[in-house]
């Protein structure tokens, strides 16, 4: 079998998931999770836009649906869905910047459903679902233009980006726009924290989907991940101690 160690780790995660699912759903014992400031801020961002009578601008990022970064793209869609729900409920103008062409039908469907569920499908302005060009440089140019011409009150940057994240944060500061960054791109974390008002980085962003839903089944999935993380720490500690006494366990971890 290819990658036996990876398979065993995956099996362990599934075992933990079964345990946490049974505990949280069947026995109704859900652990407390810390609140994610970025998610709490979504309400504030849409509310601020409503009060100021200015739009919310959400850029959903680049990233293909058939790469290893598809988790980021999915999480971006989930956050967008939540933002679209809130904008539909509060009757706030929503501008969506779509980075990748293949996201267009998905974003359009998500926006349509959000407004339909809110009971105001006629309020969705299809002209505000804008394809931004498909490359980083096109995104930068298009977002600069939208920030300048439409003057949004809140700006959300979620999904897969490159170094252009720093540019959007700087733009948001310049125009006095409340900003949120959601990304899993490790080398953009410093810019996300420095340049934005709110951020969802790394696993916070990926867990946002589960947290938004408040579904015990999804939250048990996050709990399973935490249990696996503790197990990994224990394995690493054992590995470190064994390496001090001259025994190398990495040979068994690279099967």
């Amino acid at each position, binding site marked *: 079998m290819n990658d036996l160690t990876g398979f065993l780790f995956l099996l362990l995660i599934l075992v933990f998931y079964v345990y946490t699912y049974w505990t949280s759903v069947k026995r109704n014992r859900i652990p407390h999770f810390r609140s994610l400031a970025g998610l709490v801020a979504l309400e504030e961002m849409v509310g601020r836009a409503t009060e100021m009578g200015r739009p919310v601008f959400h850029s959903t990022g680049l990233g293909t649906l058939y790469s*290893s970064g598809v988790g980021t793209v999915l999480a971006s869609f989930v956050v967008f869905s939540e933002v679209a729900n809130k904008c539909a409920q509060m009757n706030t103008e929503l501008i969506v910047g779509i980075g990748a062409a293949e996201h267009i039908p998905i974003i359009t469907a998500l926006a349509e459903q959000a407004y339909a569920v809110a009971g105001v499908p006629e309020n969705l302005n299809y002209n505000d679902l804008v394809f931004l060009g498909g490359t980083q440089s096109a995104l930068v140019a298009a977002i600069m233009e939208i920030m300048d011409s439409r003057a949004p009150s809140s700006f959300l940057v979620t999904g897969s980006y490159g170094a252009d994240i720093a540019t959007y944060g700087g733009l948001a500061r310049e125009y006095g726009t409340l900003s949120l960054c959601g990304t899993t791109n490790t080398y953009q974390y410093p810019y996300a924290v420095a340049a934005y008002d709110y951020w969802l980085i790394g696993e916070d962003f990926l867990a946002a989907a589960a947290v938004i839903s408040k579904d015990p089944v999804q939250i048990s999935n996050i709990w399973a991940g935490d249990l696996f993380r503790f197990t990994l720490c224990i394995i690493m500690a054992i590995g470190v101690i064994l390496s001090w006494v001259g025994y190398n366990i990495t040979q068994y971890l690279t099967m």
Partner: protein
Amino acid sequence: MGITDTVRKLLTRRTFVQGMLIILLIIPLSRPLGLPILIGEHSRAFYRIVEELPPNAKILFSQVTPVVLMGDLIPQAIPVTYQLVSLAKERNWKLYFVGIGSPDGILQLIDSEIWATIGWPEEYGLKYGEDWCNLGFVAGGDISWSTFGSDIRAVVQYDREGNNIDSLPMMQDVNSVADFDIIFNNGEYNTVIVRQWGEPYGKPLMLLCLTGAVVQDVEPFYRAGQVKEYLAGVRGGADYELLVNRPGKAIASLDAISISHIFLIGLIALGNVLYFAEKKEKGRNSL
């Protein structure tokens, strides 16, 4: 209006900060200052590994630099490619170029930047189809990398010139990544290449990465032995230009890099001086 007010107004004006930076960058770019540089250990090791490649080696060069990142990645690709093509004839190396990823002109950069600077491989005595070939662009993400790794012909039937790859003599006994002796990657997808080509086939990976934070991504793989060696952006490119004795864009950019680093440190220091001065003023005013 006090000094702190003036400085605060200047530092918070984007036009001033960015304008100063642009002026400071134009000076060394237009008139190189010739500041000395120290060749890094990674660059030396990278150079040594290439020099010590055995004869008849099959070398796969994956060129996935999108146009947007060419400023950082092409300056290092040029001297590395120069070293490969200049030694290829005497060592009987076979060079295979390919570009897998999002369509953003990744392969066009080989023609317009690399060959345009160092000359086409034919000028070094290499023959297309026998000593070097360009397998063309393959669209896609992880799936394409994985499929190319296991069966090249599943994703590539024709090379960039439109020839059937089976008609190329150098492709006769090459079916998967396992048939190559070493792999170079210039651009993004570093972790993908470790996952899809390095780990499954155990091939030595030589990565030409973006500067700075992307190196942090590659460092754990390097320490774990999954990446043989890496270069880091313009800095690595400048080192390499000195090693192959072919000064170019990277060395020319280093003066600008030095100036911009010093400027940024100065800005941060000034920002902090202003912060403490304002704090002191507020404290005095509240008494």
